[in-house]
């Protein structure tokens, strides 16, 4: 008797979940879908909806300065863009900033990470100082460097003068202004690259280097044959982050030059901001933002493909 009762109880306990799934008629696959549903809704609300809304707005002639309601304009905003020299100039500037500062920050970041990875007694101050540029707000960094490069009161020209060179009016020339911006961006972003690369460096087993020592490989060869190949995943991750933020460059040129002289250091993100916030032309601003979004997606896709072919 006793055994039967126990058996029944156990049976009921074990059968319950099975019954429940049978009742819902769920396979493992549909259960997974069900469990992912809340996350998908959240994602749709905060990412898919705004992007769709952006694309939708870009087809309208929506400007707060020429009266409402908005009129459907089809591809007018995109047509306008093709004939807009400032759009091409700011896009080119953005691409150029990306092409200069991403490799620049990678090289400096790699150097910093290798330095921080050396074993010596006072390691923590070095690692802490790595964090400072990364922790500083972008616009604040822009403000500081705007002062550094000021033609009269700036520390950069002061150093140049002391070294016997003539000071440069940095923000009076498109090339020098561009150089000053790129230097600032590299300073600001290389510590982030260094942090990711440092994390990668610490996963490389010491034993590999010891074995290489035994085999008689020099430092340089160890770097190219062990360190660099094993760092590749970290470097690709760092590059993805950096490239996307480079395409969205706004704060530093905004604070340093305001896009000047003329529009020669203005970026696409600044042009979007100008059209939406200053000119209140939400239709054209949205169209520009769609282009920037597409550009970011393309670049990300290229990187993701790079990782996939590696595996």
């Amino acid at each position: 008797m006793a055994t039967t009762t126990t058996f029944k109880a156990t049976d009921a306990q074990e059968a319950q979940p099975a019954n429940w799934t049978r009742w819902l008629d769920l396979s493992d696959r549909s259960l997974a879908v069900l469990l992912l549903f809340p996350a998908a809704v959240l994602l749709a609300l905060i990412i898919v909806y705004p992007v769709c809304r952006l694309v939708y707005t870009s087809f309208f002639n929506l400007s707060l300065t020429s009266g409402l309601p908005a009129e459907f304009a089809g591809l007018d905003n995109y047509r306008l863009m093709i004939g807009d020299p400032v759009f091409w100039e700011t896009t080119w500037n953005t691409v150029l900033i990306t092409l200069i500062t991403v490799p620049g920050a990678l090289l400096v970041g790699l150097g910093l990470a290798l330095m921080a990875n050396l074993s010596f007694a006072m390691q923590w101050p070095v690692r802490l100082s790595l964090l400072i540029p990364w922790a500083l707000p972008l616009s604040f960094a822009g403000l500081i460097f705007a002062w550094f490069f000021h033609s009269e009161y700036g520390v950069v020209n002061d150093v140049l003068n002391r070294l016997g060179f003539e000071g440069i009016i940095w923000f009076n020339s498109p090339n020098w202004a561009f150089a000053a911006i790129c230097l600032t961006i590299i300073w600001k972003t290389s510590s982030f690259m260094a942090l990711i690369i440092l994390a990668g460096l610490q996963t490389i087993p010491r034993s590999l280097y010891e074995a290489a020592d035994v085999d008689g490989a020099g430092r340089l060869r160890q770097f190219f044959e062990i360190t660099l190949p094993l760092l590749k995943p970290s470097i690709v991750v760092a590059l993805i982050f950096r490239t996307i933020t480079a395409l969205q460059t706004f704060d530093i040129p905004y604070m340093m030059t305001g896009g000047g002289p003329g529009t020669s250091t203005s970026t696409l993100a600044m042009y979007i901001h100008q059209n939406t916030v200053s000119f209140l032309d939400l239709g054209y601003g949205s169209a520009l933002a769609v282009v920037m979004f597409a550009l970011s997606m393309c670049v990300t896709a290229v990187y993701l493909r790079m990782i996939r072919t590696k595996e």
Partner: protein
Amino acid sequence: MTFSKLTAFRKLTGILFCGTMLAFAMPASAETALNIYISSQHQPDVWRKALDKYEAANPDVKVKIETGGNTSEAQAQYLNTVMSAKDTSLDVLILDVIRPAQFAAAGWTSDFAGKDMSSYLPAYAGANTVDGKVIALPAFADSQFLYYRKDLLEKYGIAPPKTWDELKVAAKKIAESEGNANLQGLSFQGKAIEGAVCTFLLPYWSQGKVLTDNGRLTFDRDAAIKSLGLWKSFADEGISKKNIAEVGTDDTRKEFQAGNVIFAVNWSYAWAQAQGKESAVAGKVGVARLPAMTGGEQATCLGGWEWGVSAYSEHQDEAKKLVEYLSSQDVSKFMAINGSLLPTYAGLYQDAEVTKSAPWFADALQVVETAKPRPVTPRYNEVSEVIRTTVNAVLAGVTTPEDGADQIEARLKRVLR
């Protein structure tokens, strides 16, 4: 807890809760809190004194000042963000004279129906009236003037210049004779700020040309080339600093105040500071009308600021009453004496108390009366951006005056179509 104790506890909490809510609600219903936005460059501390008087006379109103943005563009961006979000937190807004048309088009301010504007200077009555509706009320007038070093001009027996060419000759003569490497001939605004729009327009207007007529573009390429070329020549001939493309309005004010400038183009606010305790040139400053192009007429840019009531304010009547006060003749006089802000009432320019604190106001009325407004259009922000970035590019040597004029024309055609 027993049942009766629990009920008592609930009751007590309820009473406490209601009491607290009432305590918070009571002062709010007894007095109105108004938030007023004043840009930080416009002496909010002096306006505070005027507001203190208002609060004393109206104990049921408390006014809080919110400041921010020290350039016209920064203020515009801030207000654009607040207003397009339909934010109710601001009741009264200070607006640059170029903005009423834009605010009217966006429906961001409540109009003053039936307001008689005839007591104000005609230019300001006009600037605040869009399509027959009074959008805002004048806060103070302004225009650009030529500031000069009275002591240096007297020393070399030179009269204040009437043309830009005379100014060049005078500046060169004084700078050479003084032999001071830090002394520059002319400081004006070359940075890509709102002031650079006026920089462009001064010589353009002086040649008898206008930029728009009833909202349509009437661009004169030759006049524009001459205008851009004039400013570039100041930089090229060493009369202005090489980095003039970096100079903003307040940089001009600071350098003049430090005694490093012979002539300066600036707005009326610079006077009070040039006479202040920290000024190296107190008592040595002259103010005159801006020079003309040779053969042209003297012209200046109409400035000034206005008080608007936010369309989203929850205290429309109280806010309008406050604006009526701030725009009144009494406050205008108070601000003229204490903040050297130019009045929008013609009579105050001859007022003995006003001219005692700022003697040059006696001659300023003529300047303000003949000052020309910048193009009136809801899309003014775009017009401004086109002109100021081009002026900046020409002064930096990135663009020639000819190309600059072509760019302005091509881009303005798109904005003012």
